[in-house]
C-alpha cells in the first residue's frame, strides 16, 4: 500500500516521538525487552522484518546499494511477538551517546519473510538462508538471517554466497522511514 506524503510524515513523527521518549527515559519499551520469554522460531511467510539503514546506503535512484547490506548473519527485527518497526532505531544498552543519537536518525527498511533469498542454486554446495529468532535481553524481536550448508550452520561464509544474498535482497526491500543521517563514507 502506497502512503501519501502527509501520512508518511505523520508516521515518521509518531516513530520519532516514541524513540525520543525511550531515549529520554533511557529505557526500552517493555514489549521490546525479553523478560524471560522463549525463542519462537515460527515465521509466517507474510511476516515483516525490519532493519535500519543510512541515507547514503541508497543510490540516487532510490535503490538500496547491495554492498551496504549486511551479509549473513544479518540482524533484523520481526513484526510478530509485539514487534514495532522503530525498535530497530533503539541502540543497545551501554552504547555511546553519539551512537544512540546517530541510530535514532537512521531509516527503516522492511522485507517480508517470503521475500528473503532462499538457496543460491547456480553456485552449488547446497546452501540455504534461514531466518531464525535470536532474542537478546534488551531486544526480544531480534532475528538473524543465517547461512546453512547441508543442514549445518556456517559461521564464516564464502564471499560469493554472501554477495548473492545481498544482490537478491536489495530488489525486495521497501522503505518504511527515510534516513536523516549518512555514514562516514557518505
Amino acid at each position, binding site marked *: 500500500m502506497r502512503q501519501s506524503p502527509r501520512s508518511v510524515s505523520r508516521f515518521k513523527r509518531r516513530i520519532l516521538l516514541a524513540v525520543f521518549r525511550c531515549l529520554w527515559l533511557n529505557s526500552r519499551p517493555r514489549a521490546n525487552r525479553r523478560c524471560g520469554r522463549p525463542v519462537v522460531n515460527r515465521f509466517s511467510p507474510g511476516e515483516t522484518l525490519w532493519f*535500519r539503514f*543510512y541515507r*547514503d546506503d541508497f*543510490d540516487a*535512484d532510490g*535503490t538500496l*546499494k*547491495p*554492498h*551496504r*547490506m*549486511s*551479509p549473513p548473519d544479518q540482524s533484523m527485527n520481526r513484526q510478530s511477538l509485539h514487534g514495532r518497526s522503530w525498535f530497530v532505531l533503539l541502540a543497545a544498552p551501554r552504547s555511546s551517546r553519539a551512537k544512540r543519537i*546517530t*541510530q535514532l536518525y*537512521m531509516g527503516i527498511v522492511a522485507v517480508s519473510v517470503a521475500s528473503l533469498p532462499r538457496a543460491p*542454486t*547456480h*553456485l552449488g554446495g547446497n546452501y540455504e538462508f534461514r531466518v531464525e529468532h535470536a532474542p537478546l535481553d534488551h531486544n526480544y524481536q531480534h532475528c538473524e538471517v543465517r547461512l546453512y550448508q547441508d543442514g549445518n550452520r556456517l559461521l564464516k561464509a564464502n*564471499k*560469493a554466497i*554472501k*554477495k*548473492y544474498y*545481498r*544482490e*537478491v535482497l536489495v*530488489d525486495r526491500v521497501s522503505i518504511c522511514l527515510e534516513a536523516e543521517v549518512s*555514514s*562516514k*563514507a557518505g
Partner: protein
Amino acid sequence: MIFHTPPPPVHELCQESIATVGEMWPEDSRAVIDWAPYGEPMVHENVESSTSINISTSSPWMSDALKKVSFLGSLDGTWHDSDAEAPDTVAVSLASQVLAQLATLGIEPADIDASVDGGICISFAGVDRRSNIECFNSGEILGAMVAYGQEPTIWEITGRNLSSSAAQIYSFLNE
C-alpha cells in the same frame, strides 16, 4: 599477508599522466601481487615487475575516482553502523587496478563506495540492469551482473580475467 611498504597514496598517482605502480614504490621494497585462483593473493617481494599495471588518468573521471578510492582507504572501523571493516591498502590497490582497466576500455563507473563486507565496490548502472565489481580486503575480487527480476550472476575476477570481465560488464550494460 604483510606489505612491508604500503603502496603510495592514490592521489600521488593522479599527479602523473601515466604512472606505473611498480615504479613508484621504493626500489628495495617493491612488491607485486600475484593473483591466486581464489582466496588470498600471494605477494612476492623484490620481484622485477612484469605485471605492473599502468594507471592512466587520461579518462576525465579517473582522477576523481582515484581520489574517492584514496578517501575510502582512510576510513576507520567506525565508518558504518554494522561494525564493518574499513577498506585497507589491499582493497585500495585492487580497486585502483580495476579502475585502470576500466579506463582503458572507457567504462565509467556510476559509483565507488565502501563495502560492509570489507572492501571497495565499483558500481555500474544500465537500463533495468546493474553491475558491480567488489574488491575485498582479503584480496578477492567478485563481479556481479543483475538484470532486474532475474537471478544475479556472480563470478570471481582474477588478474587473468580482469580485462574480459570488464568487457563482459560493458556488453551486459549495453545489451
